[in-house]
């Protein structure tokens, strides 16, 4: 005999109640209500045969394989327990009640009558188990509860913990600071954060963790819960956890990925690091003869520029090309973009020829270097230099032949004008 009771409230009583119950009876009522409810049971009548430790007749209340109470007798003794006005509450949403009578009854016993009702559970108040409690906010309702998260967090698929979206951080500056979310407050649970440092090839990233470092760990197992893993090129660092800062890590790579994983429990401060980029180093250059390098530094690293200039009267020569200055860059791999060019004295080159004219060098070796002087003159006596005056040109620092009167403009050989080829006839005596 017995019944499965699923209503939200109900009554149960011993067989034949309120008449005396029969011998050798065993009846079980299985009460179940929806999740989120507990069952409260209380007796309004109780009259069973008393026996030592209720070994004859009894009412046993159980839940989830656990005996909550065993009642028998008419009144409370050292060895017999009666329900009285005690209210029995099930730990969850099921409860079973079993009535049993043995083969004999010395007297007439009327049995029992009991009532039950389903009562909403306030999970937000009652759940102290960290594994079940809401991470941030808990909201109770009749028959259940739900969790929500603070602004900026996302409820994890476990519907309990609050994670963060944190995998879109790409750092491209040469220096920067990264930290776990909310540092130095506890970092979020159930999160996988990927931080990427992406610098130009030729740089190497160095990481420096702050002293305040706290990632949930385990005394015997290496970082089973939360951890940092660092991938730098082919090298991997970590997993890192615990409360000792890893200090400085030289990754040797320009591309670094930092994965920070947190599980669904624990309250730890987290971590913070600053990173710096170090360029590959180029050897110190020697300035060219009659020239200099700027800036002068004890060492040059990737991306450093050096400007090569020449002293007054000299010009930079690179691949036979004359330049005002020349720039060299320290490249990845520690090599310079070019060799140091040479400085050569300013050379104005061969002077431009003029029609019907010629150029005479004033110096001994037809030098066209800075300071050399030349003179223009006309080859044909029927031409004269125009404009007349000083036809001397000097090779100037600008690398051009320049005249004091005409600047860089050239003279020309113009025909001599207004001179008859014949003398006028002499006077004749009349």
């Amino acid at each position, binding site marked *: 005999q017995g019944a499965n009771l699923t209503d939200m409230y109900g009554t149960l009583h011993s067989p034949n109640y309120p008449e005396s119950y029969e011998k050798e009876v065993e009846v079980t009522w299985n009460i179940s209500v929806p999740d989120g409810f507990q069952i409260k049971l209380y007796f309004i009548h109780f009259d069973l045969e008393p026996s030592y430790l209720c070994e004859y007749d009894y009412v046993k209340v159980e839940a989830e394989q656990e005996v909550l109470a065993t009642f028998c007798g008419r009144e409370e003794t050292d060895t017999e327990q009666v329900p009285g006005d005690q209210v029995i509450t099930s730990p969850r949403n099921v409860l079973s009640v079993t009535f049993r009578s043995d083969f004999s009854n010395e007297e007439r016993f009327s049995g029992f009558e009991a009532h039950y009702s389903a009562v909403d559970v306030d999970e937000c108040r009652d759940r102290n188990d960290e594994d079940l409690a809401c991470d941030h906010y808990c909201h109770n309702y009749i028959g259940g509860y739900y969790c929500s998260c603070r602004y900026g967090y996302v409820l994890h698929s476990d519907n309990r913990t609050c994670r963060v979206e944190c995998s879109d951080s790409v750092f491209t500056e040469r220096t920067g600071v990264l930290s776990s979310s909310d540092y130095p407050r506890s970092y979020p649970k159930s999160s996988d954060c990927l931080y990427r440092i992406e610098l130009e090839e030729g740089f190497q990233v160095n990481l420096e963790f702050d002293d305040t470092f706290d990632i949930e760990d385990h005394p015997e197992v290496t970082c089973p819960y939360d951890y940092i893993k660092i991938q730098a090129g082919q090298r991997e660092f970590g997993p890192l956890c615990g409360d000792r800062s890893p200090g400085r890590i030289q990754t040797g790579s320009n591309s670094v990925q930092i994965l920070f994983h947190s599980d669904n429990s624990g309250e730890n401060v987290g971590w913070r690091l600053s990173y710096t980029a170090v360029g590959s180093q180029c050897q110190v250059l020697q300035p060219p003869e009659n020239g200099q390098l700027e800036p002068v530094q004890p060492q040059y690293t990737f991306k450093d520029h050096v400007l090569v200039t020449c002293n007054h009267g000299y010009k930079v020569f690179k691949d036979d090309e004359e330049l005002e200055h020349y720039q060299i860059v320290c490249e990845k791999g520690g090599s310079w973009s070019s060799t140091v060019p040479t400085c050569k004295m300013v050379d104005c080159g061969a002077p431009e020829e003029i029609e019907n004219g010629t150029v005479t060098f004033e110096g001994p070796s037809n030098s066209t270097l800075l300071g050399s002087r030349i003179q223009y003159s006309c080859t*044909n006596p029927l031409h004269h230099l125009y404009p007349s005056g000083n036809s001397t040109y000097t090779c100037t620092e600008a690398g051009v032949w320049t005249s004091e009167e005409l600047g860089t403009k050239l003279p*020309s050989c113009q*025909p*001599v*004008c*207004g*001179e*008859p*080829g*014949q003398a006028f006839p002499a006077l004749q005596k009349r």
Partner: protein
Amino acid sequence: IVGGRSAVPGLFPWQALLMVEDVSRVPEGRWFGSGALLSESWVLTAAHVLRSHRRDASVVPVSPEHIRVYLGLHDIRTKHLAVNRTVERVLLHPRFDPRNYNNDIALVKLSQRVDLSGLALPVCLPPPGQDSSLPLPNTLGLVAGWGISNPNVSTDDTTASDLGDRSDVLQYVKLPVVDQEECRSSYASRYRKYNITENMFCAGYYEGGRDTCLGDSGGAFVMEDPHTGRWVAQGLVSWGGPEKCGSQRVYGVYTRVSNYMPWLQNHLDSDS
């Protein structure tokens, strides 16, 4: 040239003979004038020498292919011995007025450069910025040409036909510059329509006898620079009154070259 003398070869090495044969207007379409060599490529002349003959006042230059330039020429009968050039370009002054010959000046660019020699040398131009009152009255200049030397023989055009009474050998004459007011009043008193502008000056003698004439047009009126001793083209033979050349009180009118230096320099410089 009326009342002049025969030149010896090389006396006027800048003197150029310009032969024009405008075949579209035969037989009137043949005439000649003079010019002055300015450089290996450029010849200075009067605009009316190279203006295509038209009845209206339009100014159209003769096509370059209808012009021949002779340099180093002495006797016109031996043109074949002279330097002979065709013409690449004719530049008439843009404000040349064929009704009164104001701005009667032109440039001719030769197709080929001329080799300079004792018989072919350029004439000087007035210095830029020369006072427009120059040349001074009564100073003497020389003009040469192959134009009419005997004005008693009649002609039928304002320019001489090369078949007319021209001189075979280059003639030249020495003429004094006439006071501008005298020149102006001389013409004004006789012909109301003739106007002496600031771009012209007169040269000649009150008593006549020596003058330029038909066929001398475009030739240079040269004056000796007292400082350099070089001969400078101060004028270009332009026009005269309807009387016979060399008549009394009929002065020849010349284009005042110094008024055109910017225009000339502009073209000469752009070419060089």
